[in-house]
């Protein structure tokens, strides 16, 4: 395998595997948040605000993978 192919493969694998964890995490977290809202609708605003903070933090992991993939393709 030449270096170019390895780079592209690496970028694909980095993005794919890197999106797996955050995807699971986001699903779990948003599901739990909706469960909480269903149980206590009067807390909906607080829960939603905190959910978005959590989304921002969880999503960052996938974005690191995205940046690594970009670096592999365009810089490495």
């Amino acid at each position, binding site marked *: 395998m030449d270096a170019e192919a390895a780079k592209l493969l690496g970028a694909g694998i980095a993005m794919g595997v890197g999106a797996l964890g955050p995807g699971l995490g986001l699903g779990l977290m948003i599901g739990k948040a909706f469960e909480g809202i269903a149980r206590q609708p009067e807390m909906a605003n607080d829960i939603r605000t905190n959910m978005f903070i959590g989304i921002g933090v969880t999503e960052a992991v996938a*974005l690191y993978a995205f940046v690594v993939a970009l670096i592999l393709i365009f810089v490495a």
Partner: protein
Amino acid sequence: MSRRLRLLLVVPVVLAGLVALAVLPGGERHEFEVAKEFELEPLVELPSLGPVDLSINKAVVYLWITTGLLTVLALAVSRSLRLAPGRFQALVEMLYELARDGIVGGVMKSGRATWFPYIGSVFFFVLVSNLVGLLPLPFGEHWQPSYYAATANLYVTLTLALFTFVLTHYAGLRKNGLRYFVNWAPAAAPPVLKQLIWVIHLVSELFRLVSLSVRLFANMLAGHAILAVFFAMALIFQNYLAALVLQGASVLIYLFEIFVAFIQAFIFAILSAVYIGGALDQEH
């Protein structure tokens, strides 16, 4: 003509049309590189001032458009405030309330009045910048229409993140004095562990800079890249049926991007508020 007969006529015509689209020879093959859409070629060459290149490129133009649009809209709305708001004023009021009560009021315990102007400005700036990025504007290569967002540029988002970073520590130092740095580690921890926690906290403070800037940058870049790929696939397949399907799909992605533009502005502002609020009201 009965309904059934009409259906019998319409279905074959539509099917024949789709088949015709599928077999019709496409146009010329065009070369299209998605990465090129994000390269910053100078639109207007200007002499450089020492190491600083003053040339005007796409990102600069988009920043100007965002700033101009935001200023004009804010002035227009604030000059013509009415007790019974029109549609546009109601929208702006809703966003303003979201920034004031939802973001600042929701996560900051003290200093709300002091820090709302900054967080509100960041929210509106990022929001308008993201939304402007979804308009095709003629600033591409050879002044062709292209998509770009000022926030799909790491330098812009890093500058915004640096504002939040510097202001966070300024807020903490002004309120807590030099105790601010001591409070980074919990007072109850044993000595050696305390230093370790302090270092970990320092690293996490620095990584906030990375995550805050890269989150916005990568989201906008990825959204624009996906749109560009969908537009480009029609050129690559050279097939009208594929083009029809892909353009339909790209409309859906476009709608999703409007949602993402809003969510990312919200997350950037709310995390700024969380960081500044955390520096103001430290846990001991």
